[in-house]
């Protein structure tokens, strides 16, 4: 049987994603593969939510531009200097690398949290895409507080989108990357064009008028009634840490383990400056137009349709797809870590179906920000622990991958360090009255690394250190 005539199941079974082994050198990918993926992944329907958030919370124009510039540079550097080097050094997913450090027990908890979060995130993207299709078909989207939707047409749209996303993710990294490349150059232009085209509506008729209108009509420095005031630091931390679980939390080791060089982490800059700078600014402009026209809480579909017509609505649908594809892919890897006997593609199908079902329950999906915050609290210390284990332990004579070396299923030192750092960062969150959990990602990151190193220095037995040689296979 020729390759082209393999059945679908055989084709999927033939996809090897190296879930429990290093990616071999012949499978690494070029810079372009990462540019397309990250550029389209970070242009999601949610950009039409976050950009307006800065407008509604009264951020000043100078704070927005400066905060986004610095925050996005820091985010890019976090991928390039933290995540990608660890991924290229080990060529493993975070899930398997962590299992080697902490054993199957703790990693099961981590994988479960990851799998659940990714499912909710993908469900949110499916919901955003569906809302845009619903807008085009004149079908009312269910409210965010509705527990479930009983409109059969709405459910049909959700399942249609879910099928596309699941099939693409099931075929693995290569297909996810190729799918994203198709849309990567076009989506940013839709955001950019809609922002430019709406400027005259706000009274900007030449470039020199932009800044004064930006300060007086868009990012005015005055929040809408009932909203808290956002400052430079809010914007900076938002831009830097909204994806903290992916960069300093090392979630994107799953992606960058395919990178030929660690410097390919800089590809994330395309995602940051296109998705989290230009798109947030453009959607902020659109939000200001919506406010001017009396729409106080515009949906992503409404904003996109207002700014770019049907093309804008299509953009929101595709932005949801291209973000949900890698999300489902990562969720598949996380859940597959819980059940290593099952093929990744079968697990990914189950995850895709779960995300699609979740998308039918808007009330669950509306809690996405809380899930993301909890995930950031959990993931940042884990990232630091893995980094300390890879880079610091060998230099201090401590044993890396200790669970793997001992054949242990439960590394109690890891668990203690993880719990201590989560508790410490949560206490700090309460004391500082921060707006979002993920604002505590950096304290959690530092605490995780420090606790793990200190506890390992105290508890790793000297005789054990002598008996076991550090791993060299990764």
């Amino acid at each position, binding site marked *: 049987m020729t*390759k082209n005539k393999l059945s679908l199941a055989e084709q999927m079974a*033939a996809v090897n994603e190296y879930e429990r082994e290093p990616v071999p050198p012949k499978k690494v990918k070029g810079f372009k593969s990462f540019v397309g993926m990250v550029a389209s992944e970070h242009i999601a329907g949610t950009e039409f939510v976050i950009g307006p958030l800065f407008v509604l919370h009264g951020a000043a124009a100078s704070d927005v531009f400066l905060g986004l510039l610095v925050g996005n540079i820091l985010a890019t550097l976090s991928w390039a200097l933290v995540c990608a080097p660890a991924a290229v050094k080990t060529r493993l997913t975070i899930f398997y690398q962590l299992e080697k450090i902490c054993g199957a027990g703790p990693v099961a908890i981590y994988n479960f949290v990851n799998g659940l979060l990714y499912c909710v995130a993908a469900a949110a993207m499916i919901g955003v895409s569906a809302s845009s299709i619903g807008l085009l078909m004149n079908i009312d989207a269910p409210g965010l507080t509705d527990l479930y939707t009983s409109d059969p047409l709405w459910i049909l749209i959700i399942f249609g989108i879910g099928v596309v996303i699941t099939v693409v993710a099931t075929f693995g990294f290569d297909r996810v990357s190729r799918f994203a490349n198709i849309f990567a150059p076009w989506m940013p232009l839709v955001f950019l064009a809609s922002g430019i085209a709406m400027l005259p509506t706000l009274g900007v008729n030449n470039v020199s008028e932009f800044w004064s209108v930006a300060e007086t009509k868009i990012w005015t420095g005055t929040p809408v009634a009932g909203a808290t005031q956002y400052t430079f630091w809010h914007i900076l931390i938002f831009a830097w840490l909204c994806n903290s679980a992916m960069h300093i939390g090392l979630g994107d080791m799953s992606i960058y383990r395919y990178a030929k060089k660690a410097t390919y982490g800089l590809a994330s800059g395309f995602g940051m400056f296109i998705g989290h700078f230009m798109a947030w600014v453009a959607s902020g402009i659109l939000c200001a137009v919506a406010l001017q026209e009396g729409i106080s809480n515009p949906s992503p579909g409404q904003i996109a349709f207002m700014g770019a017509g049907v093309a804008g609505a299509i953009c929101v649908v595709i932005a949801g797809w291209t973000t949900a594809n890698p999300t489902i892919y990562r969720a598949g890897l996380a859940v597959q870590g819980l059940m290593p006997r099952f093929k990744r593609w079968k697990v990914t199908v189950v995850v895709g179906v779960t995300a699609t079902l979740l998308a039918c329950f808007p009330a669950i999906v509306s809690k996405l920000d809380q899930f993301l915050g909890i995930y950031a609290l959990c993931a940042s210390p884990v990232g630091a622990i893995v980094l300390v284990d890879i880079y610091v332990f060998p230099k201090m004579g401590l044993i890396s991958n200790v669970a793997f070396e001992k054949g242990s299923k439960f590394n109690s030192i890891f668990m203690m360090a993880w719990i201590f750092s989560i508790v410490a960062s949560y206490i700090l969150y309460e004391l500082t009255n921060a707006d979002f959990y993920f604002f505590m990602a950096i304290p959690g990151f530092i605490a995780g690394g420090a606790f793990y190193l200190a506890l390992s220095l105290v508890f790793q037995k000297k005789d054990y250190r002598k008996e076991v040689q550090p791993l060299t296979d990764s």
Partner: protein
Amino acid sequence: MKRLVQSVSFLGLGLTLVPSLFVFAGTLSLEHYKLMMLAGTMIWLCTAPFWVNGRKKNIED
């Protein structure tokens, strides 16, 4: 042939962005801009898949 398809694709990208500049300059209405953007979108989405990812590889490659 590939060059021709690429040229059409880039025309689509141009139609997605450039009309917005004319709206900004006050020489094009929002309605016409949205129609041209939709045309550009369709052109890009229908032509880009033929060349963006280069030669198609077998899954086992």
